[in-house]
């Protein structure tokens, strides 16, 4: 029986939260894959304008903001791991601001496309694929921001967030995923698609 006891003590399995969040990311990737593939298939298939090369401007600033928010969320997570709460709040707020900046500039871009260039989802295939793919990504940014703001709010209200390190970590993984998707969307929409 001693053998069984050591087996019980040394028994190590992966963390269920880690596996859960990883497969959530897998399933979300499958969803994005179809929208990306559709975008690629429909490049250049619109019979009427406006066309991407005429109306799309490369969103340099907002892309830099979103990608650097991956860095700030990592710093925040690192600070929380070492129990430096003030620094965690700082980096976490920076992440939220960068995410908000991205969202606002996407909104401004859409506003310009709709009101000045008269491109809506029903105008042509480019409009259909553009708004659905970029919109799907933006909706993921919104979901991420809701949770980021939730964490910041409870932290400011005095909740001991360091007890929830695992969940903060999983949230940051989700945020990294949203950023990685943006790299793909950016390449497809603004580089290949133009």
């Amino acid at each position, binding site marked *: 029986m001693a053998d069984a006891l050591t087996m019980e003590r040394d*028994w190590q*399995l*992966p963390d269920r939260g880690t*596996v859960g969040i990883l497969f959530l990311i*897998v399933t979300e990737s499958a969803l994005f894959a179809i929208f990306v593939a*559709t975008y690629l298939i429909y490049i250049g298939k619109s*019979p009427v304008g406006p066309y991407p090369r005429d109306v799309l401007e490369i969103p340099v600033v907002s892309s830099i903001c979103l990608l650097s928010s991956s860095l700030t969320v990592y710093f925040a997570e690192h600070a929380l791991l070492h129990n430096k709460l003030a620094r965690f709040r700082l980096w976490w707020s920076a992440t939220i601001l960068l995410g908000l900046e991205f969202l606002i500039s996407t909104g401004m871009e859409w506003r310009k496309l709709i009101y000045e260039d008269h491109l809506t989802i029903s105008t042509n295939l480019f409009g259909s694929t553009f708004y659905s793919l970029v919109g799907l990504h933006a909706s993921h940014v919104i979901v991420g921001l809701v949770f980021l703001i939730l964490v910041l709010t409870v932290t400011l209200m005095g909740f001991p967030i360091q007890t929830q390190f695992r969940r903060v970590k999983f949230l940051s993984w989700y945020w990294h995923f949203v950023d990685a998707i943006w790299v793909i969307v950016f390449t497809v929409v603004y580089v290949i698609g133009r």
Partner: protein
Amino acid sequence: MATVDYPLDRPPVKDTEFSFSQALYSWVATVDHKRLGLMYIVSALLFFVVAGIMAAVIRLQLMFPENDLVGPATYNRLFTMHGTTMVFLVGMPMVAGFSNYLVPLMIGARDMAFPRLNAFGFWIFLFGGLLLYYSYIGGGGLQGAGSAPDVGWFAYAPLSEGAFSRGSATDYWALGVMVAGIGSIASAINVIATALCMRCPGMSLSRMPVFVWVMLIDSWLIVVALPPLTAGQIMLMLDRHLHANFFDTQAGGSAVLWQHIFWIFGHPEVYILIFPAFAILSEVIPVFSRKPLFGRPAMVGAVVAIGFISLGVWAHHMFAVGMTSWSNSFFAASTMFVGIPTGIKIFNWTATMYGGKLRLDTPLLFCCGFLLQFLVAGLTGIMLGVAPFDWQLHDTYFVVAHFHFTLLLGLVFGLFAGIYYWYPKAFGRMYNEKLGKLHFWLFCIGANLTFIPLHFAGMLGMPRRIYTYPAGRGWEGWNMVSTVGVFFQAAGILFFLWTMVRSAFVGEPAGDDPWDGWTLEWATSSPPPEYNFEKLPVVRSSRPLWDLKHPHDPDWKFE
């Protein structure tokens, strides 16, 4: 009952005073994987009865040429709702139900990895199902056209587009299926996390029961294959309501893209549906043959292979659409390829039975039915996988007969085997063996009588989805025999439901281990307590109960 010391903050509740509302509350608010599993299976059976009645009406309509039992519009709704219900509201919850009930018990865990996510998955699935059926009331929409969806279970564009499907019926189809799909994904992620992270000490992946392995790969397929359908449905809804142009050929879109997206989901989906039967057979056949599973590593390897190859065969549903000959050749070849692991599995189940001490009770009878009939289904599948053959028989009753052989005479037989096998575990009482055998023979004769003739009707050119047909084409006899089979099937199902309900109250007490099984679910009481195991088991081989029962000849010495 012995006196129990209750903690102070929880007032004692005596079983005798358990009122109806308390019982209802305890089921609605439960996060127990066993209760959720049973709820999945029971609601799947309810939908199964509804879809079965629809199928019976379809068959009665086709019994005679020029029959007018139902009109063409009703007929279109019937086959759409029958197909959608069987796939999304019977097959999918059966996957979730069996894996929920059994995976934690088999790996020696106290619950699933995420119990509350589990409850969410069930209720959102049920909501999706009710949303789909609400279309009978609300499907007319503002334009007052149509009631239930009538676009077929794969809702091909452009038929499902706003211009051709007025009213809200198709929206209910898209939303109901999408919502139920969210439940399936939630449950699949849960099964993966449970199988990978909750195994009891000693239960390494190589010792994990084959049932759990199959369900793990099944969940992987759900996680990667369901989102494409959701993506397609989002595009369809954008087309229908915001006038996007995804599937609108006039604006440069492509209706064929919908077919690709649908079948990227749809072909893995048929493996998702059949996997529970694979899982059940891999447990039932060894126990009823009194032999360990033949070629266990090959069995697991075959399942993993299917889990990847089946992602690359989807366009064999589309040979008739006019793809390039390179695409046709590729998908024909990959379809042949995916037949290999399936052949390995059939071979191994047969080899397990070969030379075994067979116990021909109801569960094994259903397994034998599965083996023979699924073999036929596999062979007609290979035939249809050959592109020129498919061009000839595409959209005929031959295809209908083929996939009913896989899903009804295959999957449903496997599910019945599983239900009879684990019934004593779930309810603590034995089903009625005589009624079970009666169910098997009636259902087996009926299903074969219904679907064997349809192969011939199809080869004589009878197309799918016609609400009636003229006399004199040689189809009448086959259709008549086919409909007669329905009465046998219905009688079998009545005996099944009767023994299921009745035995739960008056069946012989079954004891913990009525089949002399080898996996951990038979080590706990029947029905299992809420916490499953008083003390978490420690496992040293793939047949832990064999080791326990035969301490002088344990398996682990040979593994």
